[in-house]
Structure formats: C-alpha cells, structure tokens
C-alpha cells in the first residue's frame, strides 16, 4: 500500500527528500496528488486538465494554462484556444521535463492572464481554499489555490502586473515574480511582452528558490532573456542582520489598504527588526499614482498586438464566415471574453494614429520615471516592502462588474513590474481569518537577497499555509 502523503503540508523540498530516500515512488506521489484533486478540486476548480501518468521521477508540478505543454491542451483560459494542443513545449515546461518533474496538470486562470480574480476564465472561476465564496486572486488563481489546497506541491504561474504575487497573497503562499528577462517566455501565451514573466508558486521560500533555479537562465529562443549574474542560492539563514528594509510611503499608505492588512505587514516588519534588519521609510513619489495608468496603457497596447494572431486560420476556434474578414471578426468576437475585448480595444486606441504620443508614448516615458524612482530608493535599501494586495480575498462577484475596481487589486504590485524588478510575496499573517501577503521588492537580479530575507522572515513568522478550515 502506498504511503500516506499529507499533500496539504508537504513542501516540494520535502517531497524530493521522500523520493530520494525511496520512501515513495514518483508514480505514487503523482497519484497522491491526483487523489487530492479528486477529493477537493470539485469544490475549488483549480485544474482545467490533469495528466494521469507521471512522466519523470521528480516532484510533480502544475503549470498555469498559458504555458505551452507539448501534447497537452493549452487554453490560456479562453474559448478561442479550447482544444488547442501545442506541438511544442515552452522552454519552462521543457526545463521542468528535463529535470524530471512530472506534469500534474494545467491550472485555471483569468483569460489570457488578464484579471485579478480568475473570474474571467472562460471555464468558470476558481475558489479560494480558505473560503470558497471568495476569489483566489488572479490571473493565476488556479496555481495559487492548488498549492495551498495541497493539490500540487508546487506550480508555475505567470506575472504581468501581479498575477503571481497577488494570488499568492490571497491564498496564503509564496509567489515569486522574477527579474524581467531571467526566465524564458518562449511558448508562454503572450499577454504583454515587456512585462510577462514566469515564476514559482510554492509553499515555502526554499521551494521557490529551488524551482527558480530550475527554470531561470538565458534562452536562445527568447531574445529578451539574460544570463543570471550569479547562481541561485537556496536560503538557509535566519538572521536579517545588516539588511536594510525600505517602506515606500506611497505603497504602504495607499488608499484602499485594509487596516487588517496594514497591521499584519507592520507586525511582520517589527519581527524583521528583531531579526536584525534596519527598517526605514522612503518615497516613490509618482510610481503609485501613475503606475496603474501607465500599466493599463502599455499592457493592453502590447496585448492588442499579441492577440492579433487569434484569427481562426491555423489553430483554435473558427467561426463561420462568408469572407475571410467576416470569419476572423466573428471568431474573435465569439472566442474572446469581455476582459480581453476591453484590453484589445484600449490597446488599439492607445496605439492608434493621433493618440500614440499622448497615450502609449507617454506611458513609455512614465515607465522610465518609475524605474528611476525605484532605482533611487534601492540605493539606500536592500529591499522595499509593502502589502502585496490592498485587501484580503474579496467575495466572488464583488468586483467583476466594475473593471476599474478590479484593476485596483494590482495597485501595489504594478509599479515594480513596470520597472522590471523581482518581487517575492510571502504570507505574513491573517486578517479576518484570511491570508495577508507581504511583498519584498529588490533590484534587478537580486533574487538571492529576496530569498534570504523571505526565508528568514518566513521562519520567524511561522505562518501555517494550511487553511484554517482544513486544520485538524
């Protein structure tokens, strides 16, 4: 009889230990997660598809359904790609494969990674494991919920404006948005090319570092990637002596931050000081106020172009049409949900003749400004800290009718994304019984610092990643 695996608690590093010591086989481990999925995913809907057979002898992994997997359907959460089976692997999927990580399944997301709640999935929402009447965050709600619910030991997500970090915050686990250019986007369904990054969603910071070391590094198939300047170091220490932590006022005192969230973050920072860190204030004068407008011009503009290939000619949905144009127009109208349509329209407008300078052109300059402000702040501090999300998980349906309200979920994650900076979200406490995430932002290529600080804090915080309702 196969050993009983507590998937709710098992970290990837622990799972690797089990495998290495021969206490369980890869096939058995894989099965254990499939069993968990059978048990709990009916309620949560984290997975769009699962893979029965374990191919590989390592720790199984779930991949957000924007990540192309050869021979396994990849939908990007959209009707327009329903039934699309890639004939090639994305680089990140290939790197997982060659490390021996069996694919567990593809996780649910907001369509084309556009959203902050996973309610925009064409295949139904995912529910937060802490409280199934609430959202898990988005766009990568499926991966985050799966990890928290013990349906996968770890997962990969994609982050454009916060789509890894925010769901991790709302689901109470660890999410890393890497430095732009350290992880290949080849084979990942593109949303906004200059912002998209693929990163780990895990239960612990060590797991995140391990997974990052597997996927990171220059890819000749992606011209925007660079080699890591130093190898990934798995964090071990517990002291934060000598670490300078900055708290940007505009991020930490932004309008809309719930008191419970602010309090949890403040407690965590007090703990950081006890561990030896120096905490101080700094300013990002315009990054928060102009961050969202800048993002919601650049991202939709790039998306409007990236989504032009979905035309029913070579793959995906095809509608009826008496002419080529009619066929394409109808395919796109039928296949895209409201949020992609909104963003395509916005982006098309922002790039169009007469509007380019005022909108897209201007946003590109605001982006320079935001990068500068972050660079200056990071001259005095090793990491910047703030809540990841202004609120805890909100009820399903609460914001879906108000796009702007939904966009505000990413208020705090967006600015550092625009600067291409890495960010690590770790759970730092509960507010009203729901997880609060704290984000650590560092300069480009500072993942090792983020891991070190995150790990030390994580050890001190002792946050229990198992949802209260499932604790025995």
């Amino acid at each position, binding site marked *: 009889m196969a050993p009983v695996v507590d998937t709710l608690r098992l970290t990837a590093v622990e799972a690797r230990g089990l495998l290495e010591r021969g206490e369980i086989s890869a096939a058995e481990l894989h099965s254990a997660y499939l069993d968990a999925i059978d048990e709990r995913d009916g309620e949560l809907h984290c997975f769009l598809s699962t893979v029965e057979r374990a191919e590989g002898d390592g720790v199984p992994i779930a991949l957000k359904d924007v990540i192309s997997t050869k021979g396994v359907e990849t939908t990007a959460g959209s009707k327009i790609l329903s039934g699309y089976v890639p004939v090639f692997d994305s680089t990140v999927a290939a790197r997982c494969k060659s490390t021996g990580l069996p694919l567990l399944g593809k996780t649910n997301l907001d369509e084309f990674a556009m959203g902050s709640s996973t309610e925009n999935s064409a295949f139904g929402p995912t529910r937060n494991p802490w409280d199934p009447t609430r959202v898990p965050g988005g766009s990568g709600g499926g991966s985050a919920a799966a990890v928290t619910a013990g349906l996968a030991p770890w997962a990969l997500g994609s982050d454009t404006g916060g789509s890894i970090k925010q769901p991790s915050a709302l689901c109470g686990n660890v999410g890393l948005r890497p430095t732009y250019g350290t992880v290949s986007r*080849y084979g990942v369904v593109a949303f906004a090319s200059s912002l998209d990054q693929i990163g780990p969603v895990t239960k612990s910071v060590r797991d995140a570092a391990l997974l990052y070391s597997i996927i990171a590094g220059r890819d000749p198939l992606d011209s925007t990637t660079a080699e890591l300047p130093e190898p990934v170091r798995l964090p071990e220490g517990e002291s934060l002596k000598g670490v300078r932590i900055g708290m940007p006022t505009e991020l930490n005192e932004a309008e809309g931050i719930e008191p419970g969230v602010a309090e949890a973050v403040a407690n965590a920072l007090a703990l950081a000081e006890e561990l030896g860190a120096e905490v101080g204030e700094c300013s990002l004068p315009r990054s928060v106020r102009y961050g969202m407008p800048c993002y919601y011009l650049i991202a939709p503009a790039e998306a409007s172009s990236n989504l032009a290939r979905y035309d029913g000619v070579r793959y995906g949905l095809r509608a009826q049409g008496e002419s080529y144009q009619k066929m394409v127009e109808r395919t796109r109208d039928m296949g895209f949900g409201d949020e992609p349509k909104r963003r395509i329209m916005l982006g098309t407008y922002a790039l169009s003749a007469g509007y380019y300078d005022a909108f897209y052109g201007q946003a590109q300059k605001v982006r320079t400004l935001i990068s500068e402000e972050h660079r200056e702040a990071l001259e005095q501090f090793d990491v910047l800290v703030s809540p990841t999300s202004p609120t805890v998980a909100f009820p399903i349906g609460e914001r879906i009718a108000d796009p702007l309200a939904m966009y505000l979920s990413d208020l705090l994650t967006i600015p550092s994304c625009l600067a291409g900076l890495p960010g690590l979200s770790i759970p730092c406490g509960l507010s009203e019984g729901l997880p609060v995430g704290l984000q650590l932002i560092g300069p480009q290529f500072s993942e090792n610092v983020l891991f070190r600080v995150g790990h030390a804090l994580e050890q001190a915080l002792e946050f229990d990643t198992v949802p209260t309702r499932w604790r025995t």
Partner: protein
Amino acid sequence: MTWEPVIGLEVHVHLKTRTKMFCRCRVGFGAEPNTQTCPVCLAFPGALPVVNRTAVEWTIKLGLALGCDIAEHAVFSRKNYFYFDNPKGYQISQYDLPFCISGKVILPTAEGDRVIGIVRAHLEEDAAKTVHVGGRTGRIRGAEHSIVDFNRGGTPLVEIVTAPDIRSAEEAKRFLQLLRQTIVELGISDAEMEKGTLRVDANVSVREVGSSELRTRTELKNMNSFTFVARGIDAEIARQIAVWESGAEVRQETYDFDATTGALTPHRAKEEADDYRYFPEPDLVPIEPPADLVERLRSELPEQPAARIRRLESELDLERATVLVTGGLDRLWGDAVAAGAEKIAAANVIANTIVGAGLDPAAVSAQELARLVDARERLPRAAFDEAISKLADPGFSAEPYLAQEAVSDESELEPIVARVLEASPGQVDAYRSGKEGLLGFFVGQVLKETGGKANPRVVSELIRERLDS
C-alpha cells in the same frame, strides 16, 4: 503646359540567407507547402522571434553600397494589420529607426551624373504565400476560397526607398538595372524580378516643369520586369497628365499594371487607410552595429558601379560602358582586352553573347574569349556560336574552332544566294522598296542553307550586289 514626372521607387530585395529573418527555418523555393515552418513563422501561441545576424550584416553592407549612414541604434517595430499571409497579425519591420538612411545612387548619363537619393533601407520579414482558388484568373477577384502556404513567410527582406528624384520611366529602368547589379555583386541576393526575389513598386506623380511642388501620387504594383515597370510608369504618367489637363484631380490610389493590355486597374477601394499602429517590437532588443563590423563590411565593398562606368566610358562610350557594368561584364571585358582583344569588338561580343548564352562571366576564360573575338569575322557563324556557348566549360580551348574557316569563296556562295533570293520574291520586293533591314533575313537564310558555314560579311556583300543593281 509641360509636365515633369516625379517618380520614387520602393524596392524589396529577398536576401538569400540560409534561414528566415526571425527563426531558423530554411529559406528556399520548391519545398512542399508548409514544410519549412515552425512555431515562430506560423505564429503559434507563445512563439518568439530571434534576429538573423547575417541578414543584419547584409543589410548594413547594402546600405553602405548605397552610400547610406548606418544607424548607431536600430530598432525593429511592429506593423499591425490583418491579412491571410500575415499570421501574427503584425509584420516585424522597421519604422522610425531603420538600419540605413540618407544614401544615394549615381546614374552616369551623357549629360553628367544624375543623383538618385536613397531615403532609407530597412530590414523586415516577408509575408507568406496565398493562392486564391476557384476564380478565373487565380487572383483574388472571383475566388471561392484561399489556401495559405507559410514556407515563404519570414524570409528576410530589405526594403529600399528612393527619394522622388527619378524623372522618367527610362531613368527608372536604368536605375533599377544599376541597383540590381550593385545588389548582385554584394552576393546577398539574386535579385530577379521574374523569380520574385526583387520586387518594385513605383510612386508616380506629375507636376509642371520648373515647379517644386509635390502633387498627389499614386502607387503602382505587381510589375514583374524592369521593362514592365517602365511601361507601367509611362502609362500612369500619361493617365495623370490627362486627368490634370481635363481639370480633375488625381486621387491617391494603388494600381496594378497589366503589361499585356497596358491597363491600369485600381485596387479595391479601402474604406479607410490602414492605421498600422507602429510601436517598437518588445520581443526584440535594439541593434547597435559595432563600429568594427561596419568598417569590415565597408572594406569588403566592390567598387561602385557608377565609378566603373565612368572609367570604362573613357575607353568605350557611355552606352557600352553602362551595358557592361550593369550586366556585371566589365571585369571580363577588361581581362579580354588585356589578353589582346580589340576593345569595341570585345564589348560587342560580350554584351551580345555572354548573357544570352547563359554563361557566368566569372567562369569564362578571358584568354579564349579574346581569341574568338579576334577571329569572329572569319569563323563560320555556327562554329563561333558553339565556341561561345562552351566558354565557361573548365579547360575550354578555342583552338579546334579557330581552325574552321567560314566559306568565303564567292563562286561557292553565289548559287546559294541566287536560290535564296529566288525563293523569297516578296521580301526582295520589300527590300527594293526600302525595307533594308531585310538584309539580315537574307543573310540568315543563306547561313541556314550552308549550315552556318558561310562568311556572313561576304554573303552580305553578294546579296547587296544582286539586289542593289
């Protein structure tokens, strides 16, 4: 009112790299449809472009050959539009920061050098190939459906844009010939219009002589030889002049020129002009050509054609010099002359026979050619032609051919001449009433009768003696 044409050309050059512009699929003709494609050139979800380094180097080289400034910071941009042959829904091209700007091409003419400005040369990817099925002519009009082959999609293309400095259809043709030769000598493209590796669109407008205004221009497309380009331009100039002179205004339109009928057909009217919404390609980083690369490429440039024409002009004449240089034949000529051939005779023989025989000038033995040029008056035509055709064969020697002599014995030739003239009474009458060009016809008939062995000069004299009396 005298009118002056104002012509600019947009030339697309297919680079003959081994792989495509943004992926490493092979480039080449004749493969089964959709067998030279990959996720990138098929625009599968998640695919990303990677620049072909050789294509960049060749573009810079071409820009240098055209006298351009090479950008220190060049950027690829997305040109967004929907069409069958454009799978991403955008073409990766260049917009505000192309590789090459502000060059010029010099056309030597009898009245001095004509300078044709080159506004820019940039690098982009070619579209895929669409076949329209079911219509009468295979074109879009009347087709039932279309089928798309993505093999060609992604081939590197350099687009060269000239200033509107060209002033006649004939000048456009000469410009294109010189441009083509420049490109071929760089080894970056075969640049053949008939094969589609060189494409030319013309922008045409007219204005009053002496004015410097630029009136509305039209675009001519789908002409597949330099001659047709010239004819199309002439037809469009005439059409525009007629429009202005009738009191109407020329409208900005795109026309296809049908060379067989001479008709200019406007493209389907677009409801609104395309808004391409150019923005810098986020999947590619800028190219900053290293100075040492640019210098190395500059040092590899062959001598400018215009300079070579002027040099040869002093030894021949402008027309022969132009023909030789734009045909890539001047080096062979120089070698043949050095080997003893008479200059004008060598020029004539080379210009008239080498290209026609399909020979590669670089493979032709200049020594043997010189000997043939020397002997061409006395050799039988057939022998001469055969020798020419073998000039590029390795180890060719003219010796065996030189031994042959054309028949110059008048007594042998007289009866044959008489026979030929008797057999063609109609042509004889025509000749006597002024059509002197028919002399060639009679000579040809005699040569035919003698299996090419008669001496054409002697035959010619005999015929003239008979007919002019």
